[in-house]
């Protein structure tokens, strides 16, 4: 196995707010890997710059979108495709929402292992983006045992 494979390239993707906070709490999951973050606001770079544990990362932004804005959704998809092409991740992980879906789709197309961690805020049902991503995921997690049981998602704990 080459050294490249021993330090996998991880693309960690989320939209803003709670999704970003949850993604940050997952950091030990890729300790030792080479991480690239993709988030929806450049302001979040300050969180990384002020964290002494975040010494070596790449940072990209995309503009968030949802299903009601078709054009923005297309722009998001295109930008995400370019980011995935540039990073060539071995692993894509996301807590949601639309940006994560596109990253997982394109990552999978290019052979990455893909992980969805549905937000802890989704205690009643899996998110729309989770359901869209499901068949493209190697690991599809809920943070709620009862939801995992209902949906067939895996459960391994929560971000909080």
């Amino acid at each position, binding site marked *: *196995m080459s050294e490249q*494979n021993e330090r*996998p390239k*991880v693309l960690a993707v989320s939209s803003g707010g*709670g999704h970003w*906070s*949850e993604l940050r*709490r*997952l*950091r*030990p*999951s*890729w300790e*030792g*890997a080479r991480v690239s973050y993709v988030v929806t606001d450049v302001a979040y770079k300050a969180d990384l710059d002020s964290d002494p544990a975040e010494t070596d990362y790449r940072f990209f932004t995309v503009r968030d979108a949802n299903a009601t804005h078709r054009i923005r959704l297309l722009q998001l998809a295109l930008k995400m495709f370019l980011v995935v092409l540039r990073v060539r991740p071995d*692993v894509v*992980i996301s807590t949601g929402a639309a940006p994560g879906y596109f990253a997982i789709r394109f990552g999978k197309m290019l052979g990455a*292992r893909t*992980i969805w*961690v549905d937000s*802890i*805020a989704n*205690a*009643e049902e899996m998110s729309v983006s989770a359901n869209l991503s499901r068949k493209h995921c*190697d*690991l599809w*997690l809920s*943070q*709620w045992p*009862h939801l995992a049981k209902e949906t067939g998602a*895996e459960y*391994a*704990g*929560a*971000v*909080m």
Partner: protein
Amino acid sequence: MIFLTVGTQLPFDRLVRSVDDWAATHPDMTVVAQIGAVGTEGYHPKHMESRASMPSAEYDQMCRDARLIIAHAGTGSFIKAQTVGTPILAMPRKGALGEHRNDHQMATAAHFKNRSGIHIVHEDTEMAAAIDTLLAQKPERVELSLFAEESLTTKIRSVVFAKG
């Protein structure tokens, strides 16, 4: 200051009324309430400052400044309280009383209840005593963890570092 918040999706009269009743007998404590869009039929507090919603920056500031947050047992409330390090007293909505579609807030409350700085009551009749108890204590130092549960990050690592 106590900050009461029930989210913006549905009113939660049973909780708002119980805190308003408490506020009536404690005029020395400021209580600010975010109660959602309460219709004419719903309960409008008389002993605390209330509004339907507030901008997120102001909401965050309220959560930070409060001695105690009182809330419905929504994930967002717990996450916010734990993020800013303010103790929270929460009551789950009951589906049978039409306070939500179902009883999922019971599961949410059960998940969070053993954490530092998180307190749960299940009945509005327990609210006043719970507030008194929490205010009588020294302000809690909420122990915050920075990271997800280890079982979760271990599971994810098994895929991130899978030998292919």
